[in-house]
């Protein structure tokens, strides 16, 4: 690829082809919207149980907790839009041997494998999550400064990249294990923990969700940043973790490819 404009043109072609292919299955939109709304209703109900007697949840008010739930819903929508279809396709490419076609294109293979497919059915989740997130911020009575919003946006972007890196590394292991699809499902199920603020969990789980599976950095830290209650070191740690994860996903892919190109037949 020659520069960002060529990459943008390619991405437009990728996504318009994906949209055209997805439109062959029009009923999916309605089903996906129903599924997002159903999930959200369930989460809101569970969340409301915690706040029944005016209690708070690990130091978070109802409105603040809505921001966390909104970010989770948004990231889950993003997962359905980009991560799951693309990284699912990576596993299929390895199984069917069509990864060869991708590797023979003069395009960065990680770019191709991460962004080739765009499934619009995750967009209702992104939209509903976005609305919930903004509603939570407004209702919580926070008036974010431009700087606060910029930091919030940056941390949210970092959270998305972190989530992407986790998915990509897991999908890339299919080069060795071939059948890793179940593992990515387990990852998605674990990330459900990010629906609620991390401080709501017992200490042991908090450690797990911060240092082992970085669930905290996916939803709680961006929510704190948007609500202006994040400490600077935590925000920095969030950015650093995302940067490291992204770098690690790149290195891991280069390593996996070296293995693929010396082992496949």
């Amino acid at each position, binding site marked *: 690829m020659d520069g960002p404009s060529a990459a943008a043109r390619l991405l437009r072609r*990728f996504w318009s082809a994906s949209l055209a292919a997805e439109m062959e299955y029009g009923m999916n939109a309605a089903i996906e919207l129903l599924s997002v709304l159903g999930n959200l209703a369930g989460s809101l109900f569970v969340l409301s149980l915690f706040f029944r007697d005016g209690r708070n949840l690990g130091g978070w008010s109802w409105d603040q907790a809505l921001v966390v739930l909104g970010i989770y819903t948004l990231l889950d929508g993003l997962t359905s839009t980009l991560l799951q279809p693309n990284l699912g396709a990576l596993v299929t490419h390895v199984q069917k041997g069509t990864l060869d076609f991708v590797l*023979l294109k003069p395009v960065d293979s990680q770019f191709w494998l991460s962004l080739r497919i765009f499934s619009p059915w995750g967009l209702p989740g992104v939209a509903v999550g976005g609305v919930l997130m903004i509603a939570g911020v407004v209702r919580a009575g926070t008036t974010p400064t431009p700087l606060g919003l910029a930091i919030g946006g940056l941390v949210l972007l970092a959270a998305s990249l972190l989530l992407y890196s986790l998915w990509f590394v897991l999908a890339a292991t299919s080069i060795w294990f071939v059948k890793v699809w179940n593992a990515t499902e387990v990852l998605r199920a674990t990330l459900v923990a990010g629906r609620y603020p991390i401080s709501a969990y017992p200490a042991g789980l908090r450690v797990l969700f911060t240092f082992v599976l970085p669930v905290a950095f996916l939803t709680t830290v961006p929510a704190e940043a948007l609500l202006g209650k994040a400490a600077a070191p935590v925000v920095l740690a969030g950015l650093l973790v995302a940067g490291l994860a992204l770098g690690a996903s790149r290195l891991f892919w280069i390593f996996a490819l070296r293995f693929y190109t010396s082992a496949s037949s």
Partner: protein
Amino acid sequence: MAMIHARGLGKTFRVADKQPGLAGTLRHFLQRRHRDVSAVRDVSFLVEPGEVVGFLGPNGAGKTTTLKMLTGLIHPSSGSVEVAGFRPQRRQADFLRRITLVMGNKQQLIWDLPPLDSLRVNAAVYGIDDAEAQRRIRELSEMLEMGEELTRPVRKLSLGQRMKAELLAALLHRPDVLFLDEPTLGLDVNAQARVRSFLAQYNRRYGATLLLTSHYMADITALCPRVLLIHEGSLMHDGSLAELTTRLAPCREVRLELREPLPAAAFAAYGTVEDLQGRAVRLLVRRERLTASVARLLAELPVVDLEVREPPIEELIGQLFRREPAP
């Protein structure tokens, strides 16, 4: 400068050595054993620009492994290879723009969409602008005799139509080195013939270099003045198909129909009796003695009809593989 230059190319794979059955599975689980399998051994050859070379060999001979080394998809364990002046395994963009790989058993087209959508993606991948892409699509689809198939979803195309669309997608960037792995696999006779004539035309029009593997001898005889024969990872022949036939079959078959039956001993002076049934005789005669033997047969025996046959190349290669076990 040669377009493809392989020097002492070799590839060894580590494969798990597992006995069958539950006991074998348990043993394998507890103590994995591996052994090295040599898929390609010390293969060297040169291909000049514009040449069409056939790559022959039975399943598992190492043809696909070699093709994958030439395209840079797998790294050689030994030796080296250069294609269009590049080292394939580095997979530089400039190298990838000059080659293509067509695999008869795998497809790159988007299943749910018409081929045109995949072609638009490929145009963007190779940085071909829309007008130029249109022009090339028109030109190639005329050569391939394609029409409305380009706007029909791939899943609704016949195997032959799909293969033509795959070829179009693989050649849109006008590569000058084509690696074709069984491009006519599963196609009916007519579709095979169309693919063959298209490849010959592409080679003539653009001066492209072609290296193709095929199980269909007709592909090789129609397209490849030169063949590389690979067996159990080693190169056994590099030359014309005629030379290969001479090498594999030093004899021709002479079929005779006689006016009256004769004993086998009557033919000893002309060749080896392969079959003798009443008045019908099949003799094997060495090529260098063929003309003289036929003339003598006609002059000396009561011949009603005579036919000289070349054994089919498939049969000869089959015999070769059965005759010569791996060294």
